């Protein structure tokens, strides 16, 4: 029997295999993530699917149930389904919003389910067993640091924000805190909803409104794509540079090529969902201690190191 055939059997009749294999253990991990509403969550969906496939192949008896939700209340419902219908042993959850999901996740944890929380922390400490997250304040701070450096501490910039959420607030607060004592002036700040079309339109209006813009903090790469087109259309590429964030492949490619308009990027990897799923599986299949917090870095991506952050096959 080839390895592939064994695998096929494992997927088709896990019960039979569990009875036979000594090391195998039946574990169901539920993964609850937001639906692909913008580029970054699209990346989360991609990496979650990839990780689910890889982990199921790697561990006998492991079943991963992946569910997406379009809103916080929908996600709360899907948590109930995971618990009751799928009888999960572990939950990996990237909460839509922190506050409304704190109680639903607690109820799952109270049933003895192992809980891993990703990206957005719950409103109360001590519910989760593992916490995996990017560092939002760090992302804002690193972006500001680069901007101060590149502008020599003085200049006029515009800021395009994401969707009004805790994540967006944390990034912007850290950014503003960092530039507070410099001569960098924020001319205007508007929401562009982590969306290309909104990024394009808001930037068009900023370009009409201000005769001079030295730099743009787009905060997110989807927004940055829209901003780039608006700046090109106005033929003002030589006047400013754009700092996006998250590590979208199109932008990383530009950084790699040494584009003057987008000289750097700040990482906020959607693949963090894969990290969370990996360590959760490790908890069940190895003796390696995994409990605790994993805070991933938000490094500055420059032309020199861009290549190691470039994933041409990812949709993001």
């Amino acid at each position, binding site marked *: 029997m080839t390895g592939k055939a064994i695998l096929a059997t494992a997927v088709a009749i896990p019960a039979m295999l569990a009875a036979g294999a000594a090391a195998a253990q039946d574990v169901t991990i539920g993964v609850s993530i937001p639906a*692909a509403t913008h580029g970054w969550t699209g990346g989360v969906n991609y990496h979650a699917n990839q990780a689910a496939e890889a982990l199921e192949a790697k561990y006998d008896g492991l079943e991963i149930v992946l569910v997406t939700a379009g809103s916080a209340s929908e996600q709360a419902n899907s948590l109930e389904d995971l618990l009751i219908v799928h009888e999960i042993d572990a939950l990996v959850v990237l909460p839509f919003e922190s506050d409304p999901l704190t109680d639903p996740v607690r109820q799952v944890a109270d049933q003895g389910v192992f809980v891993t929380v990703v990206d957005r922390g719950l409103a109360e400490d001590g519910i989760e067993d593992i916490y995996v997250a990017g560092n939002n304040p760090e992302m804002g701070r690193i972006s500001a640091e680069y901007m101060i450096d590149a502008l020599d501490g003085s200049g006029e910039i515009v800021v395009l924000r994401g969707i009004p959420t805790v994540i967006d607030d944390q990034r912007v607060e850290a950014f503003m805190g960092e530039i507070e004592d410099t001569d960098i002036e924020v001319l205007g700040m508007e*929401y562009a909803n982590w969306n290309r079309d909104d990024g394009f*339109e808001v930037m*068009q209006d900023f370009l009409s409104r201000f005769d001079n813009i030295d730099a743009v903090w787009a905060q997110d790469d989807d927004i940055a*794509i829209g901003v780039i087109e608006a700046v090109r259309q106005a033929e003002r590429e030589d006047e400013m540079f754009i700092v996006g964030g998250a590590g979208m492949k199109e932008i990383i490619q530009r950084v790699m090529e040494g584009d003057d308009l987008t000289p750097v990027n700040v990482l906020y990897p959607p693949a963090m969902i894969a990290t969370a799923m990996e360590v959760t599986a490790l908890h069940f299949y190895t003796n390696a201690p995994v409990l605790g917090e994993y805070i991933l870095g938000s490094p500055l991506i420059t032309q020199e190191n861009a290549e190691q952050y470039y994933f041409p096959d990812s949709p993001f």
Partner: protein
Amino acid sequence: MPVSSVPETLRRPMATWSLKKLGPLIALVALIILGTIVNPAFLDPANITNVLTRTAFIGIIAVGMTFVITAGGLDLSVGSMAAFISGVMIISLNGLMDTIGLNWMLIAAGMLIALAVGLLAGLINGLITTKGRIDAFIVTLGTMSIYRSLVTYLADGGTLSLDFGIRGVYRPVYYDAFLGIPIPIWVFAAVAAIGAVLLNRTRFGRQVFAIGSNEDVARYSAINVDRTKTLTYVLLGLCVAIATMVYVPRLGSASATTGLMWELEAIAAVIIGGTLLKGGYGRIWGTVVGAIILSMIGNILNLTGAISSYLNGAVQGIIIIVAVLMQGGLKRR
């Protein structure tokens, strides 16, 4: 109730051409004045063309929506339909590139595919609504959800991007100008002009009015109600496809966020323009003005730092309601 298929509003004497009927136009002028006060850069020709160009997508869709709503229907699926058609168009263009080569034939082929998908999507909405005797609200709520998830599936949850070479060929459709006016504005104007003639000067247009006024009376007047209603949805599907053709070259991408809320913006543009939500009366010029008003509000808010960006939505909501209140007289039918 008159047996004639001409709705009452059309037979009113000229005296009722009151200020109320010009409501949307007055709202537009008021907004232009407000914009100029807020920031003189508002009147800059570059800003005006920006606003009109970005109005084109919603505007073209809203012209089609005017027919559907006037005939007493509704279509909630247009936003996700636009996203789906964008996705199909991008995939087809990328796939056909090697066979056809990088030239205008390729773009034309992509446009034909977009039109075909739009026509088919409209036909599906129309046939299920009329033949299945299901409320349009429910049918299009269903198709809205279907198209949105299809585009997410096509894009693998991410973003579909047009090949860089094709973008070079296609880009002028959005960014170039003819006689100083960007091409999307020309397309918008042409669609609106054809729409106005079709709605006000043809038998089809009169039938649309009649069906919206009273479907039963229209049926007794020997109007093929099902066929005419289905045609309004097909027309709207084609409009969505045309909007997509000028949308795709702008950023060269489609994702699950493409066209989000476009259905509500298109419906709002139609209603602000004075078309009755319950059907029986519609006007294309109003719809055009309504669409411009909507995108102008967003533009003005971006041009001022005076209003907290947290309140943008509230200001938009107030202006929309006031614009419709100004023509309250039309609703008393």
